[in-house]
């Protein structure tokens, strides 16, 4: 039988064989990179919304608290998108005739929902719960980014499982006092309005700063009124203890998020 390939093919064949690990490796690296890319995860993608709602304006400029609209974030797994009624609370008074708000008025009048495009998507089999994260002092900004600077909402984190796990392994890196959860600008070394370091208030501490011992005696948490630590390392360690955030092994149990 005649040779199918000419002899000149030999170096090419050798190169391919020797290069196989490189090809396989680079394919792997390439896929991994693609998997984490903005295209695949949706980071930075601006999705057109039925109403050009600007968080930068409402939250950043007007200073409306997150929970004015996202009312269920402290009680439910789902931080609700507000009902049209919430929009109309203000917009019955201001910008009544603005064209931009046509879909809102139409929704209110006809009782049909405004079809918002979901920006932060977590897969169906992952049961993320907002309320517990807020209760344990994880700031909105940790996952959602600087909403106060966004016009149309974009995703700033990958929302990949490895990203969830990074925090579940080291929650102390992201814990902050509970009064600062909705703050977009919080840093541990931030000074209060009087120029001094901030102090722990009742709202920062579990059970409004009350401790109950075995015999039922109630005492105040010794942290109450003390100055807050001003580094994240100290603050995180302290809050992890105070907020009874469980350890990495517990928080990475499969059934914590998958049911």
């Amino acid at each position, binding site marked *: 039988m005649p040779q199918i390939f000419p002899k000149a093919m030999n170096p090419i064949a050798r190169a391919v064989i020797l290069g196989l690990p490189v090809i396989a490796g680079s394919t792997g690296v390439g896929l991994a990179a693609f998997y984490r890319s903005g295209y695949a*995860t949706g980071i930075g993608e601006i999705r057109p919304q039925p109403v050009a709602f600007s968080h930068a304006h409402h939250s950043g400029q007007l200073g409306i608290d997150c929970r004015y609209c996202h009312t269920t974030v402290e009680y439910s797994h789902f931080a609700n998108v507000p009902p049209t009624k919430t929009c109309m609370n203000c917009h019955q008074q201001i910008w009544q005739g603005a064209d931009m708000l046509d879909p809102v008025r139409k*929704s209110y009048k006809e009782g049909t929902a405004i079809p*918002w495009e979901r920006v932060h*998507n977590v897969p169906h089999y992952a049961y993320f719960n907002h309320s517990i994260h807020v209760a344990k002092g994880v700031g909105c900004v940790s996952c959602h980014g600087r909403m106060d600077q966004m016009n149309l909402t974009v995703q700033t984190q990958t929302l990949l499982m490895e990203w969830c796990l990074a925090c579940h392994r080291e929650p102390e890196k992201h814990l902050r006092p509970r009064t600062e959860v909705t703050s977009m600008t919080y840093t541990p070394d931030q000074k209060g309005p009087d120029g001094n370091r901030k102090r722990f208030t009742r709202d920062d501490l579990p059970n409004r700063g009350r401790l109950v011992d075995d015999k039922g005696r109630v005492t105040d948490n010794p942290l109450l009124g003390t100055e807050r630590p001003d580094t994240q390392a100290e603050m995180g360690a302290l809050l992890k203890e105070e907020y009874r955030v469980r350890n990495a092994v517990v928080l990475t*149990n499969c059934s914590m998020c998958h049911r």
Partner: protein
Amino acid sequence: MKFDTTDAATAHTPPAQWQGMDEYLGSPEFLAAVANEFPEDAAEFADPVSRRRFLGLMGASIALSTGAGCNLRPAAQRQILPYTVQPDQVQPGVPLFFASACPVGGYGEGVLVRSHEGRPVKVEGNPDHPSSRGGAGLLALASVLDLYDPDRSRQVTHRGQPAPVEEAVAAVRKLLFDSQGRPKANVRLRFLTGTVTSPTLAALLGELLAAFPQARWAQHEPAAGDGVREGTRKAFGSPRTVTYDFAKADVVLSLDADFLTCGPGSTRYSRDFATRRRLRTEDFIKHLDADDKAKYVTADRLNRLYVVEGMPTPTGSVAEHRLALPSSQVEAFARALARKLGVAGAPAGGAEFDNHPWLAPLADDLAEHKGKSVVVAGDHQPASVHALVAAVNAALGNAGQTVFYSAPVAARPDDKVVDLKKLTEEMAAGQVDLLLVFGSNPAYTAPADVLFADAVKRVPFTLHLGTHVDETGVLCHWHLNEAHYLEAWGDVRGHDGTATVQQPLIAPLFQGVSAIEFLSAVLGAADTAPPGGPVARRPREGHDIVRAYWEKTDEVRKTFPGFTAPETFEVFWQQAVRSGFVDGTRPVSGKAPDLAPNWAEGLPAPAAPASGDAYEIAFRPDPTLYDGRYANNGWLQEVPKPVTKLTWDNAAFVSPKTAARLSVDKTFRWTGGEHGRAEVTVLELKLNGRAVRAPAWVLPGHPDGVVTVHLGYGRPRAGNVSTTPAEPNAAGDPVRGFNAYALRTSDAPWFAAGLAATSTKDTYFLACTQGQWSMRQKDVVTGHEWDRKPVRYGDIALYKNNPSFAKIPPTAAGETDLINENVPGPKGGHSHGHSHGKDEKNGKHEKNGKHDGHEGHDGRLHPLTMYKDNEALVPGWDKLVKNGQARRWGMAIDLSACTGCSACVVACQGENNIPVVGKDQVTKGRAMHWIRVDRYYEGSPDDAASLKTLFQPLACVHCEKAPCEVVCPVGATVHSYDGLNDMVYNRCVGTRYCSNNCPYKVRRFNFLQYQDFSFSTLNLGRNPDVTVRSRGVMEKCTFCVQRLRGAEIVAEREFRRVRDGEVLTACQSACPSGAIVFGDIGDPESAVAEWKREPHNYGLLAELNTMPRLTHLAVVRNPNPAMPKGA
């Protein structure tokens, strides 16, 4: 030495506890099948697929999967649709519960329905409702699936053509009222209903009866007898409703009554009865508060149940003494008993039982417990038995103590009511002008001698209101689609007469109307009745109609002072709707009524036993389909029937001896997959010239000479679940099962003699789960079958002698200390009692050898594991303990209380989005139920008297040392820190190694895509908190992890422990007899830890050192020592 032999030729000794005739007889097919969990063809395409078709399918699926898989961001396409105005109380993501009542056979069972953003998803019992007390029956639990049934009728039709509902109302009004709106007095109006307990509906029908003197109300409830009504009428002169207090009864005698699982009030009775069955030590009960004390019983107060019955039922199975007697002979037995008890005026008859070995000890026992016993007669026993039982209860002083008589709960104005037979005669004679059918389906359920379907064609105007266009609906001129009870306002009474206002949880999916809305419109639709006419305007909305009734009624005035004032009424209304029942509506039973002097006069002689070659036939409502109304409910079709373990079919049940007489093959000749496909002989049953062909099923414990058939199958027009072109029934018709109504006659609705039964040469495949998931195993060294002793059983004498009798290790391996850490021994009695709990609290674990010199109960004990405790593997466990976060979830099931009713199975199915797989898949051992109720027999199948039936609910036991985890190649099943054996669906690649290695056989594999996404209505009913599993994934009980994590999150948010009893698993919450407890076994005060410390607690297969977190409390019964041996 033989290793793992499957040589079936060796002589067979049946195990002490066996699951079916084939296992008892050791049929070769069974022995071969049992050795192999996944038989050869389990994973194969069982359908004959040609090569061409296979390639086509493969090509298509590759194309499709590529198409779907190419979308790298499948999640990114979703929208959020918020409310425009958020309703009160609704927080998206937080479910709400609403109280209502599920009508079952006309009587309401109080339920709490969980609603996710307006979609009812799960039905649970209402702890405050007297017909529930927290438990929920099988039918109530499955009712939510009926709401989403894609086969429901979706529109009003007139002669098959869509029409508006107003047109139907106008058509009826035109016939009933003249142009002035005055009723036409001579209209011969007939309406046909089932049992009606709804006060509002009864009032509206009453108005119709008053306005039209010629009108009659036909009542037809095919699965309920009239024995109670007519029997009490005979005994007391007027009909009464009978209720029982089983919590107070020391001795109970059931005469063919399945009071624990069938009929109105059974859920409540099951709960009450169990309070006298949950055996606990004095130590356990001592520190409970009064309410909790009443839930348990010490060894000296266990009750005792005698059952005389035909068809084996769950009630008979849990009896101390069970006598298998043809239903026709129960009356003779009752008469003999009444005479023995010296009941004044007891009628003659039944002399053949005078010397029955049961009679003397039974009569003595009843006489010793005067005022503290109950005699209860079955619904399908004739009125004479009920009259007799009333007299016996009166003679025993039970009336007013444990047995209560009150005014009838069901509406039935005697002078206006006709039965179906009379109605049919009138219709055939052309004496009916107008027939309105509400929810009843007589074209299917009528006895064979009542030719309703023919007669209905002679009525000039017929209208049917029902949820489906069923056998009757298709015959009527008009069909109105009825609203489900979760869609409409209404009211209904419970078994004891307590009324519930039913509130809708969702707007009617298909714009259905309820009977009261339709009647209200007919009686006086505001737009058709002329102003000032004789018929007043009335409300059209269900809410207003029900509310208007309760505003007018006298019933609650006495209990709600100042009731008429509008603001007080508002308070009353809110309270009634919110709590799920109307306080004070239970009829007062007061003093026990006196027996009528002539109660025993004219009682017909008891039925004679079948003689000669003839057999007796007995008819029973199906345990899951009832009278057939649930035939299109997949959950109820697939749940294995409590005693028989059949699914998707009914059968002609015969005893082993009768089977031999009929030459029916007793070994079932298993074929197909995991011996779930039984090839059985087809019988031809002939009665009064009518014949059906029915598959025979050999049922141990069944009386000889009787063939029992279940009603409710063979429905041609129930819907797609029940109609099966691909799987014809034994007669070759494309329906599920055979129609037993075809043999039933109106004069002998429950049993009849003179049945001619012959076996044919044909065979039929039944799907039976009794042999599936068998835990049998052979010792690899000796080749002997291990005696697993799955259900441990003892009588009270054994228990008193050795309360720890159940802990005896069944095989050579000892139960180690470690096992007992999860199966703690009695307090103080053994080395790992209370002290264990205390140490646990401090986060320490006793190690072997540290005990104060006290040996365990088994001398062979020695540490068998080299692994550390699970908690020792969790870093920072001590800190978790300190913060109250160290939870060790565990469950205990009290087998003494379990009745095998299988409510847990359906509750689990609804909660966990478990798919229905269909008969064909069940025959391959692929049913997906996460919890199963194993049914074992002990004794000889030929001797019904000595046969014991034992039930054992079993879900994943969440082994501390789980065999499944170590064999999973992809880490898809792993342990969580709190002791759950997690199943990670997304990691699972479907090797099924885990299931192979599971000694309990509780894992279920999605061989095919079982979830049905083709119907949008079914999607509405899924639980959003549980992943919907896809093809190729293993799944199993998670201990309702979604509920655990939900409760944990609430507790963690508030920086507190999860309180004991704060989280209930679905099975626990449903269990009518309260046999299941769940909680943190690390908390020594928790109910589950208390249960597990009881001496008769044992770990199933604990000898394998799996350390199950789910343990069982052994069955302890209280037999009468005076009874004859083997009874």
